[in-house]
């Protein structure tokens, strides 16, 4: 498989702040690669280094085997879709798209043909003469992408381009972007802080934190088997449950939570018996009132509130020890009888939870229930 973008041991420091710290990754040709991380994690700096607006302090960036050190942005076979799109307001849509072609001295007839082509492909036929400010948010989005794609770059870089759109449009654009990428076959490198964007669109996702890559893998990998507590917190939703390790081997551990519940769980890293550990348990991993409890970790919780949110409905529950847990509430009418104040039994499979050694200082993930 061809590698379109190869970043090797890249580091970038601003003053004393290390924005990108020893990052290495490969992006295979024609794939959709996302870098997911909270704001300030260095993902934009990384992308700007690939685009050529920053030079790495050390390490190499190669696009299809060619080292990019010292190559200015206007000579790199990579184009960037900016966060706020940066469409040129002084030009028409066609003018925006033709800008790069004109710089390459393509003749006028050819420019007109290719501009028309690309507008068709992004679903905006006949929009060439419109002014940029006449377009809706989603249309601007597509023009910004078309403006880059018309140059047939080897790598298309996208810097949170959906950030400015409203929720509904964002959902729609996610699917459209994915389709567009499959259609044109260009390698996309997409950065975002929105896990859903990364999971829905990508072939591979790298989770970035504090300048480093925590884990790289397929969206399913990241969701099912996070390798670090950060990934467990950041990708998907998780209940974090502190406790102590009772026994452990390479794959499994037995954890006694601070409220005295004992669970068998998959070990995400080496755990020493007797040490503190955090158990990560997804709301959707817990089954409400399981018919079979054989092989499951089962316990009873009291329902505090029903958080109704359509398909994403959950129960806010509490264990007898007082720890709050979010439990997914499937909307298949089976659990319509559940009301606040009731006690329900929940069970989960040891493979669907994961346990890591407790961290010294844990950054708060915004969505986790607080103890």
């Amino acid at each position: 498989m061809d590698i379109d973008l190869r970043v090797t041991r890249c580091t970038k420091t601003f003053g004393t702040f290390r924005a990108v710290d020893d990052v290495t990754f490969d992006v295979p040709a024609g794939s959709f690669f996302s870098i997911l991380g909270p704001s300030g994690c260095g993902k934009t700096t990384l992308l700007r280094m690939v685009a050529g607006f920053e030079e790495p302090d050390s390490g190499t960036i190669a696009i299809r085997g060619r080292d990019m050190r010292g190559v200015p942005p206007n000579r790199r076979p990579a184009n960037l879709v900016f966060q706020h799109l940066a469409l040129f307001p002084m030009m028409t849509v066609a003018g925006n798209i033709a800008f790069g072609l004109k710089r390459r001295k393509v003749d006028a007839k050819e420019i007109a043909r290719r501009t028309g082509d690309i507008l068709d492909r992004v679903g905006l036929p006949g929009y060439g003469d419109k002014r940029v400010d006449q377009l809706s948010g989603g249309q601007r989005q597509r023009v910004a992408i078309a403006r880059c794609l018309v140059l047939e770059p080897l790598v298309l870089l996208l810097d949170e381009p959906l950030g400015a759109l409203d929720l509904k449009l964002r959902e729609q654009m996610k699917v459209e972007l994915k389709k567009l990428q499959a259609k044109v076959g260009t390698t996309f490198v997409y950065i975002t802080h929105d896990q859903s964007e990364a999971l829905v669109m990508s072939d591979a996702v790298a989770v970035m934190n504090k300048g480093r890559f925590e884990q790289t893998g397929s969206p399913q990998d990241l969701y099912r088997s996070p390798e670090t507590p950060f990934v467990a917190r950041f990708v998907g939703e998780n209940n974090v449950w502190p406790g102590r390790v009772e026994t452990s081997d390479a794959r499994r551990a037995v954890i006694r939570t601070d409220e005295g519940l004992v669970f068998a769980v998959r070990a995400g890293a080496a755990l020493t018996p007797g040490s503190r550990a955090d158990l990560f348990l997804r709301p959707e991993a817990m089954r409400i009132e399981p018919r079979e409890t054989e092989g499951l970790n089962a316990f009873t919780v009291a329902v505090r509130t029903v958080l109704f949110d359509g398909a994403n409905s959950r129960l806010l529950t509490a264990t007898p020890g007082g720890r709050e847990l979010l439990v997914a509430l499937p909307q298949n009418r089976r659990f319509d009888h559940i009301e606040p104040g009731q006690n329900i039994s929940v069970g989960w499979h040891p493979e669907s939870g994961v346990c890591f050694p407790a961290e010294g200082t844990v950054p708060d993930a915004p969505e986790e229930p607080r103890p």
Partner: protein
Amino acid sequence: MRRSRLILWIFLAPVLMWLALLIVLPHLDLLVMSFRAKDEYGKMGFSLRNYVTFFTEPIYWLTFVRTAVYSVITTFFTFVLAMPVAFYIVKVVRPRFRGALLTLVLLPFWVSELVRVYGWMILLRESGVVNFLLKKIGLVDAPIRMLYTDAAMVMGLVYTSMLFMVVPVISVMDSLDDSLIEAACDLGGSTWSIWREIILPHCKPGITSGAIVVFMLSLGNYLTPNLMGGKNSLWFTEQIYNQFIASFNWNQGAAFGFLLLVLSSLIIWAGLRISRQKLGEVAS
């Protein structure tokens, strides 16, 4: 309602009085005066002669053409110099040095124009600083004549006008999103094409308003052309001065004053038409 209208009038009154008493009234007086001339019998009466004189005497309209052409040249050079200066102040330098740099641009304007022009004279005259240095390092044997030339005059005018171009350009350039420049670069734009296609079109309103101010200031300047341009390079304002003070022909002077006003407005109108802009857009 009535009360707020009263307050409006109270605040408007000084402005209106200023306009009426100091601008409209004198100009009306001058306008009337410009249409009056002595007939063959030495009697004052209505006449177009003052205006006819301007067009029939080549010395007058040639002076005007010369003044206009040099003002256009001055405006152009001011623009060429102001663009990189503004770009440096807005986009290159770190924000905390911006104020200091702007102050440096502003600083020469804290002294009077006379002092500024005199500074140039000290530098450029035949026994001046520049000639002294040139002789000292052996580049020239005899002092070069630098002052009292058209080049010196244009330079003096550019120097005097810089601020009025730099400030409006800075304010429009400030609103140019850096990512537009980066995007243009990313799409393969060269420095020249980024200037031509992104920065200049964006800065057009600022450039236009700066150009209008610089052009009008140069056209109406008296001191710099008079002191730095030497004896045989007449500026149109000097012709007006001559009519009023030397010839004591106020009627002719008033006509010249009005011609300056009308013709310069025409030039600006033409300039706006050529660059396809509207005065209202530029002023806002």
